[in-house]
Structure formats: C-alpha cells, structure tokens
C-alpha cells in the first residue's frame, strides 16, 4: 500500500503541495482531480521519487521511500507516465517496452563486454516481458514500428506499456487521455479498466470528467496543493467545495448528459448560422 503523510513541497515561495495525508487503496482505480496548478503532477512527481518533498513522508508496503531515488521506487513497483507524452520516439515500440523492463535485469557493462549467459538470458526475458506489456495495451501488432510514427493515442499506449514493463504493482498515469478524441478515449478507458481488473493498482490524473466518473472507484481532489475532498465519484461530485473549485457545471455524468441534450435541443431550435 502506498501511503503519504503530511506530504508537502515548496518551490521557492510556492507551496505546490502541502499537508497531503492519505493512502492509495490497492487493487482499485483512484483518480486525482483538481484545477490546473493544483499540484496533481507535482504530487505524482513526489510519489515517484522525482521530487524530494520538503515535508512529510511516503511509505510503500510499510517501507519508507521518501528519499529513495526514482529508479529504486520503480524497482519496488511504482511506475508512472508523464503528462506530456514522453517516449523514445526514434526507438521501436518494442524497444521502448524493453527499456521498461530494464529495472528487472541485472546485466551490466561486464555482461555486455563478455557477452555472458546472463546477458543473453535477460535479453530474451526482457523481450518477452515487453511483448507481454504491449499485449496488455493492445500494441502487439505495432511492436517494430518507430514509436514516433504512431498516433497520439497509440503513443500514450506506448508510454503505458513502458511503465507496465517495469512490472509495477502501482501505476501512476498523468492525464492519459489528454489530447485524444472521444472514440479513442473510450477505448483507452477500457484498457485501463482491464489493467485494474488484472490486479494492478491504478492512480490517474484526468480532466475528462466522463472518463473519471465511469472509471474511478475513488477520487481525491487537490486544490492549491491541499486535499479538499476524497470519496466515491458520487460523493465527490456532490461536494460543494469541489463543484466550486473545479467541476462547475460538469459535476456529474448525468448533469453532463443533460447539458448535452440541452445543446442538441437548442441547436435544433436555433435559427442557425450561415449555411455553407
């Protein structure tokens, strides 16, 4: 279990995250939402060891990981993706995933120079693990394509595959659906749900409420670096503080559907713009 206590970080005069306490329940999908600049990505950066907190503590399975370097956090089983799609665009899709498995291999410079059995064996194991990760995100057909030539959505999947190849028990996804269209969002939602169904703990940051509301088992809301609410989607979307700070009119899926209907209705009634 990933837990954090009074977690905070300050950049100069800016307290980007402060006093966040809580934990991530294993096996479910937790969503983190909040206005832009609320500190969501920063929170991920803290959990994954990219930033060292200026206060508080993080534990994983009872072990204190507050000061651990990123690669060790990954080795313990916490993997992440970035808000801006970051993958090795010039490498093949498979190669990206193979790199993800590096954390589970021990071969070093000597193995490389001497061409040891371990090197050969681990190389095979890496490719197997990588293919497996690609299968889980549905990219096995594109394994040998340069990652940069894929669509945005597929690139997002590559980044998830890379993270999966590290063999995590917790997966942190920072806005996996940003910049991809509704159809693809639905497909991606399905993939994430499958991952969770496979036993993976998923934490995701998203602004797409329809996705959050259908996907999340639990939601945590950050605002000005602080946790302002937490609970089930239904609870959170009714929380006045959350509506005030973040959701506005997008409070819950049913609200959204109503809006949509309104719009379609009004569109039909409107005198209309110019016709081409």
């Amino acid at each position, binding site marked *: 279990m990933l837990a954090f206590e009074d977690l905070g970080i300050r950049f100069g005069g800016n307290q980007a995250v402060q006093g966040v306490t809580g934990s991530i329940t294993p096996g479910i999908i937790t969503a983190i939402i909040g206005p832009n600049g609320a500190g969501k990505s920063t929170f991920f950066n803290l959990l994954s060891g990219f930033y060292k907190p200026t206060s508080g503590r993080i534990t994983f399975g009872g072990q204190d990981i507050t000061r651990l370097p990123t690669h060790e956090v990954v*080795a313990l089983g916490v993997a992440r993706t970035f808000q801006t*799609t970051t993958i090795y*665009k010039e*490498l093949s899709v498979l190669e990206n995933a193979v790199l993800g498995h590096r954390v589970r291999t021990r071969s070093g410079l000597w193995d490389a*120079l001497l061409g040891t059995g371990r090197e050969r064996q681990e190389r095979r194991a890496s490719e197997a693990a990588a293919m497996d990760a690609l299968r889980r995100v549905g990219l096995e057909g594109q394994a040998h394509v340069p990652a*940069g030539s894929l669509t945005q959505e597929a690139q997002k999947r590559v980044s998830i595959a890379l993270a999966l190849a590290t063999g995590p028990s917790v997966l942190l996804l920072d806005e996996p659906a940003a910049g991809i269209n509704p159809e693809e969002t639905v497909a991606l939602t399905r993939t994430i749900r499958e991952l969770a169904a496979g036993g993976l703990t998923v934490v995701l940051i998203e602004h797409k409420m329809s996705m959050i509301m259908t996907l999340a088992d639990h939601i945590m809301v950050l605002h000005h670096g602080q946790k302002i609410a937490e609970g089930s989607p239904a609870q959170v979307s009714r929380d006045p503080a959350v509506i005030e700070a973040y959701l506005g009119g997008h409070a819950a899926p049913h609200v959204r559907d109503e809006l949509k209907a309104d719009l379609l209705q009004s569109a039909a009634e409107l005198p209309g713009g110019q016709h081409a």
Partner: protein
Amino acid sequence: MSAAPAPRALPTGWPWLLVLLLSAVVPLVTRNNYVLDVAINVMIFSVAAYGMNVMLGYAGLLPLAHAGFFGIGAYAVGILTLKAGWSFWLAWPAGIAICAVLGLLLGLVAFRTRDDVFAIFTLGVGVIITQVINKWDALTGGNDGLNGLLAPQLFGIDFGKSRNFYYLALAALALTIFLVARVRASLFGRSLIAIRGGEDLARSAGINVYTHKLRVMMLSTALAGFAGGLYAVYVGFLGSAITGPATTFTVLLYLLVGGVGTLAGPLLGTFIIRVLQQSIQGLQDYQYIVFGPLLVLLVLFFPAGLAGVWANLRGRRASVQGTGRGKGVRDAGV
C-alpha cells in the same frame, strides 16, 4: 541525429570481416612506411574515437577530458616502462585500469552536472590533466616529455617494425570495435541510448542513470587509455601537448565527421580526416584555409556524419522528430 539502427546481436558481421581482411593485407602489398604510419595513426586515434563515441553517441554526454585520459594511458605506459622497468604488456593494462578508475572518480563529481555544463566541466578537468602532466616534472618529465620509449616485443616479434606494429594496432582496433558493438547491442547499451533520449524518462523506466553513466565513463576513459598506451610505444616520445583540448577536439571532429552514435563512424571519420589532412599538407599556407570551410561544409551537409549518410539512404523514414522534450524530460544535450 539519425535514428540509431536497430541493435543486433553483433554488427551485421560480414562487412566488418571484409574490412578486417582487407586491412590485414595492406602491409603485404605496400612496403611504404609512410602509408603504414598513416594507417597506424588512424587506427590508434579511431580507438580513442570509439571511446568518445560510447559517451557521446550512446549516452549523449560530451566528454571533453578525453585527450587527458588518452594522455594518462600513454604516460602510464611511459612511466611504468621507463621508470619502473615494467614490461609493456603489463604496463598497458595497468594504464587502462588507471584510466578506468580515474574516469570513475571524475564521474562521481562530474555527473552532478549535465549537458553543456558537463562538457565544460570535463574540459576544465582536461586542461588540469594536461597542466599536471606538463608541470609534474619528476614524474612525467614535464615539458621535456618522456623520450626513448621502446616498441614492445612479444614471442620474438619486434613491434618496432612498422609492419608488425600495424598488426598490433589492427588487433587493438578490431577488439575495440567488437566490444563496442557488443555494448551497443546489450541491455546496458540500450539503457545508455535511453539516457541519451531523456534522462527523466529513463529514470521512470527504472534505469539507474547515475551508475550507468559511471560505467560508460569508465569504458570511455579505458578506451582512451587503451589508445594512449599504444600511442606511447608507437611514437616513442611523449609530450604534454598531445594530452590537451586540441587533441580532444580533433577526436571529436573525427567522430562527428564519421557519424556520432554509429559503429562505423569513428573509424570512418578518423580515416577520412587524417587522410584529408595529409593530402592537403601540400597546400602549405592554404591548408587550413581549405580545411576550415571543408569542416563547416561537412557539418552543414552531412549532419549525421558519413556513416549517417549511409543509414539515411537505407531508411528514409527517419523523419521522426527528436525525442520527447515534454515537461518532465530534459533534453540530454546532444
């Protein structure tokens, strides 16, 4: 930079074997010492260029203390054979080990810095190495340098003869290429490429960026020392000038012209530039007036180096833009 070719187990073998065979017959068809001399220099400096390539081409770090380590390897051989009476065959590996250890020590500090700062940091270290070699009279002979290094002997073969030395250098080069190819294809080597592509992403993939950098630094300085030891006994005289930034930049030049990050690049670049320099010697006062712009043109029109031209011709689909420069990822400098 051109997309690195997909790693294979070993360099798609046969072209390299062909080159090796062709090189092996050169001394049999020419008795011209000058030709052999140019070839030997090409081989020695290619080894150094391979050492730089594992850092710059694979890990994306520009090591500007490279000639310093070349010098340390050379002086280690010089000092151990001349002053301690060691055999070259012991002194050479000792020099390589010293370079690797010093490379490790340098890395421990230097990897606090990144990108351009790393380059200039190591440039500073390079200057210090040269200066120390230049000023530590008691050990290095200071400005006098070390003179009278003897060419090694082995099983009755006298490597003082150009032809024999040629084979020694060729063996060293072949071994270097073989090892570097292995590294490139290995998990370790692929992790280096990942580090070059973006350190933060590499980190999030669980790669221990720091230790990988330290290891590759050791490999790089060891190869520099490997070349340096060979240089010492080939030339027979050591002066501090060869250990300075000018040499580093020369090697960088070979690498860039040949193609950074490619397997053939270091050899190709060293060969082309050294042969080019020899052939424009006759231009006398005009040689650098020609060479300078030629350099600019090479960089302008063959940005991926000569080996890169080949790679580009093969795979036109290289138009994929650079690696992620997103929020979390800092560009790795090169």
